[in-house]
Structure formats: C-alpha cells, structure tokens
C-alpha cells in the first residue's frame, strides 16, 4: 500500500516536471507583455488576452506555413508508408542473396547525422531544381531506416503459419501485407507514424537549410520569425505561435494514444 502511494507520488512528480513548461507556455500565451515580466511570476493572467493568437497569426503568412508544414509532414508519412512496409516485410520474411548485407547498409544510415549530409543533399536538390519545393523537403525523408528496423521486428514476430495459411487461401503477397501483416503491426505503425509526424512537423534545421523563400517554408520557421519581426522579444505572442505549432500534434497524439500504449507494452502476436 505504502509502495503504491509512493509510486503514484513519483508519477505525479514526473507529470509535473513534463507538464509545467507546457502550462507556462499556455499561461504566457494569454498574458499581456508587461504581465510576462512581473516578479514574482503569476500563473493565471488577470484577463486572458486571446488577441495574442491573432497577432502571432498575422506576423507572417501563417496559413501558408501551416499548409506547407502539413503537406510536407503528411507527404513524408505517405512516402514512408509506401517504402517502409514492403522493405520491412522483405527483410523480415524473405531470404535472398545479400539480404543481410542490405539490411546492414540500412542500419548504417541510422548512424549518419543530418548535419553531415545536408550539404551534398542541398547541392543535389539544387541541381534537380527542387529547392523551395515541397518535394525537396519530402524526398530526403521518403524512407526511414528506423522505421524499417522497427517494422521488421514487428513482422518477424508474426507466426509463419499465419502467412502460410494466407498463401493456402490464395492471397497474393500484396494481400498478405495489406490485409494480414499491416493490421497485425498497427500499434507499431501508428507509433512510428506519430513520431515521424512530430519530428518533421517540428523540424527546424532541414527546412531552414533547404528553403530560401516563403514558397515552401514551414511553421517552425514562421514561429522563429516572430522574434525577428518585433524588436523586443514578445514572449506572449511567441508562446501563442508555439501553441499554434503544437496544436496539431496534440490532436494527433490524442487519436493515436491507445495504439502507442499498446505498442510499448507490445509482446507479440498471439
């Protein structure tokens, strides 16, 4: 009993640690600028200033940023689904000449940091006239070594007999993948999709390097610009912008939460 109480207390503490910055962001986004500076800091603004959001939205072409972010993140997700699933299935289920070597190569790419290859990729995209396009932001992430690895693990846990039964049921390999395998690894897939979405939605470095004008610029770049526009740091507006940035992630998380929890306690297919 005492242990349980202790357990709950520890968890509460953790929640507090993670939730506090978020709460602070929310509270700041509803304050007036002077209010953000007062000491001691107040948690609850006297009068919530919803206009901060409108102001953040107006500092640049936010609708465009938003759409760009959306197109890029979703585009990456679709491309990744199309490449990762067949690749992971092949690595998990087929024995072909050089399969181990190929998988090794895939794994090695996991260890190369983006900062190391952005220059050659930049030159390549520039040569292909893909700078400042959505495609240019999507293509470098059209597949994911981590995703292949994760999904391959999932596919390997599926008992061989299930696939054999499907073959006896005259299912084509594609049918087996789409109708049998993918539903079985859904928790893993959803979790990966969420991580991928968050990573690319929030990505600052890559779009910063690969765009030189507003055509394909994404939301994080837009938010960063809030600081530049005003002379002083308008924390309240900046936080409002940040909340606009994370809102879609919160929505996505809300809908996939169930699967993510399943993926982390994932103990194989019965």
């Amino acid at each position: 009993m005492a242990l349980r109480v202790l357990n709950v207390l520890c968890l509460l503490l953790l929640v507090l640690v993670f939730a506090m910055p978020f709460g602070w962001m929310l509270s700041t986004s509803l304050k007036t600028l002077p209010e953000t500076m007062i000491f001691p800091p107040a948690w609850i603004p006297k009068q919530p200033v919803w206009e901060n959001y409108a102001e953040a939205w107006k500092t640049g072409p936010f609708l465009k940023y938003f759409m760009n972010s959306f197109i890029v993140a979703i585009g990456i997700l679709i491309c990744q689904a199309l490449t990762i699933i067949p690749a992971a299935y092949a690595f998990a289920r087929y024995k072909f000449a050089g399969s181990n070597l190929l998988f090794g190569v895939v794994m090695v790419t996991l260890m190369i940091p983006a900062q190391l290859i952005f220059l050659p990729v930049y030159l390549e995209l520039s040569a292909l006239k893909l700078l400042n396009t959505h495609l240019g932001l999507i293509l470098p992430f059209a597949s994911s070594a981590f995703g292949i690895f994760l999904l391959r693990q999932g596919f390997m846990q599926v008992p061989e007999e299930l696939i054999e039964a499907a073959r006896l049921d005259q299912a084509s390999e594609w049918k087996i993948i789409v109708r049998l395998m993918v539903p079985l690894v859904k928790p893993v897939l959803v979790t990966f999709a969420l991580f991928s979405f968050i990573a690319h939605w929030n990505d600052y470095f890559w779009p910063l390097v690969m765009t030189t004008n507003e055509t394909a610029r994404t939301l994080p770049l837009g938010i960063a610009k809030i600081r530049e526009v005003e002379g002083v740091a308008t924390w309240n507006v900046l936080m409002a912008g940040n909340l606009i940035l994370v809102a879609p992630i919160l929505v996505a998380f809300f809908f996939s939460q169930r699967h993510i929890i399943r993926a982390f306690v994932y103990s194989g297919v019965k």
Partner: protein
Amino acid sequence: MAKIELINICKKYKDETVIDDLNLTIKDGSFTVLVGPSGCGKSTTLRMIAGLETATGGEIRIGGKRVNDTAPGHRDVAMVFQNYALYPTMTVRGNIEFGLKNRGVAKAEREKLIAEIAEIVGLDQLLDRKPQQLSGGQRQRVALARAMVKKPKVFILDEPLSNLDAKLRNQMRTELIQLHRRLGTTFVYVTHDQVEAMSMGDEIVVMHQGVIQQADTPMKLYHEPANLFTAQFIGTPAMNVLDTRDAAGLSLESESTVAKLGFRPEQAVFDWGGMHEGYRLTGEVMTRESLGAENIYQIKAPGGVFFVKTFLEPLREEQTVRVVVPYEQLYYFGPDGKRLYGVRVQERQLAAAGGV
C-alpha cells in the same frame, strides 16, 4: 476429390537429409494418417503436399496432375494447422471469407457459403467474434470451417487436436470422422499419437526417421506388423520383445537368423496348470495397474521385462506368475528388424520346454 502420389520424394535442409526416396500413394477419399515419433518428417511430408515446402527431388501428383511447381493456393488443398493459425485481426466471418474473396467469389455467394458452413460446425452465433474471444474448441471449428468452405480436393490436418483437452479431443475426433464420411474428400492427417491414428484412419502410414515403415489398414498394422518398429509403435502397451538368445526353452527352426521374438501383452494368458499350448514364461510381478476393465502387469523374467494385459479379470495378487503365449501369436524378427515368416518351433524341444 483426388488421389495423392508421392514419387521418389527427397527433402534436404542444407546438407541434412530429412526424407530420402519416399514413395506413397494416398487413395482418393481415404482418411490417411501419418504417424510416427517426433521429428520423423510427418509435417515435412504434409507441407510438401500442401506446397509450403518444396521437395528437393521427386514428383508430387494430386489427382494425377504434377503439382511440384504449383503455388499452394492453386493446389486445391486446405490445411488445418496445429495452432489453428487464425487471422487474429479478422472476425470469424472474415477468417472464413478471406479465401473466398481471394478467389473472387461474389458477395452473395460468399454469404450463402459462410452461413452454410457456420451451421455445419455450429458457429452461427460467433461469426462476429475475434479469434481471441473463442475457446480452444471453437477456434478449432473456425479453422475447420475456413478449410471446408473452399471445398478443396484434399484436406490436410497437422496434429489439429493436440492443443485440446482429452474430453474435447475425443469429441472432435468423432466429429472429424463424421465430417470425412460426409464430405468424402481425401483427408491426410498427421499425429504422433498412435491411438488417435488407429481410431481415426482407414489407412495408416507409419514413419520413422524419414522412412515409411509400413502403410496399411489399422487392423493389418496391428496384426501383421512388417517390422520391429511398427510392432512396437502400434498398441498400448507396446509389443513385448525378447532377444531369442535370452528366450530359454524355445528352439526355433528358420532359414534366416531369428534375432528377436515378440508377442502382444494382450495375447499372453496366465497359465492355469498347462491348459494352454505355447511359449511359457515365469517371472516376478513388478507392478500392477488396474484401469477397471483391464489390468496391466509388468513382469520380470530371466529373459527380460515384459507386459501382460488382461480384460475383465480380477487383479492377481501373487508375486510369481506363469504366463503362456500361444505359438501362433509369436512374431519373429531378423537382426535388421524385418519381420520373419515361416519360422517353426521345434516339436521335440517343445515337449521339454513344456516341462519347465
């Protein structure tokens, strides 16, 4: 409906030969049981018929047609797996329907077939459940329904009852036999349980280390085992086998060397003062087991330990017993384990032996 022929089949995994030159014809409409100890290659043989495993050599024919290069889905074979292999993310209906959809059966037709099958195996109430929500017996039925709905030429079952408890196993056994009668399709059934094999099969194939020991009807297998392996594999308890050198008081006359002597525990009778003619053994009772209608004794004689089984007799309490086996119930085997025929017991010795 189809006959299955396996001609000179070989199967190697890397360098390990699992099956070497196997020849077998499975009769059209038969209930053929492959039986043998674990690892003898039963599943491998079955999987080659289904096309889940390719034969390293030889030819497989189903219904007279060579199918070596035919994909599993196109062999008109349905399989029931040991752990059922139901699709976990699909409902019972989805499981049964999957194969039909892949064959392009129209929706109305599918519904009709599913309703029919569900009725037969008693699943009508459970069609919208997921496999995880079913009991072992119900899963078994779904696996059967999934196989049956395709109306295959051949049914293949790999130890389908081994995950069920004893009572349900008996019940499903009967149901499978009835199902076979009703469908008239060729059934190929794998088990390592000889009792199951004897009670279900009309044709039994005994395998050992990738080699067919004997393929026969249950009665022939029991009464006329072709070799020592079959003799000892079929029957509970197994056939008693003694070394002829240890078999005192028995002189045999034969063209070839007789190495072993065998008799079934249920053929030996307790000697009631020389009323029976036959091979006599004297020994100490080591254990007695009473199963109600039958009693099993383990007896230690100078020539070795053997079992005697009696039916509907009171349990014997004495320590030392005399047992007699009628001569015509003795089986003889050569040094290679092959059954020997035409072995005679020498009459002169007989009289002497009788006096022991």
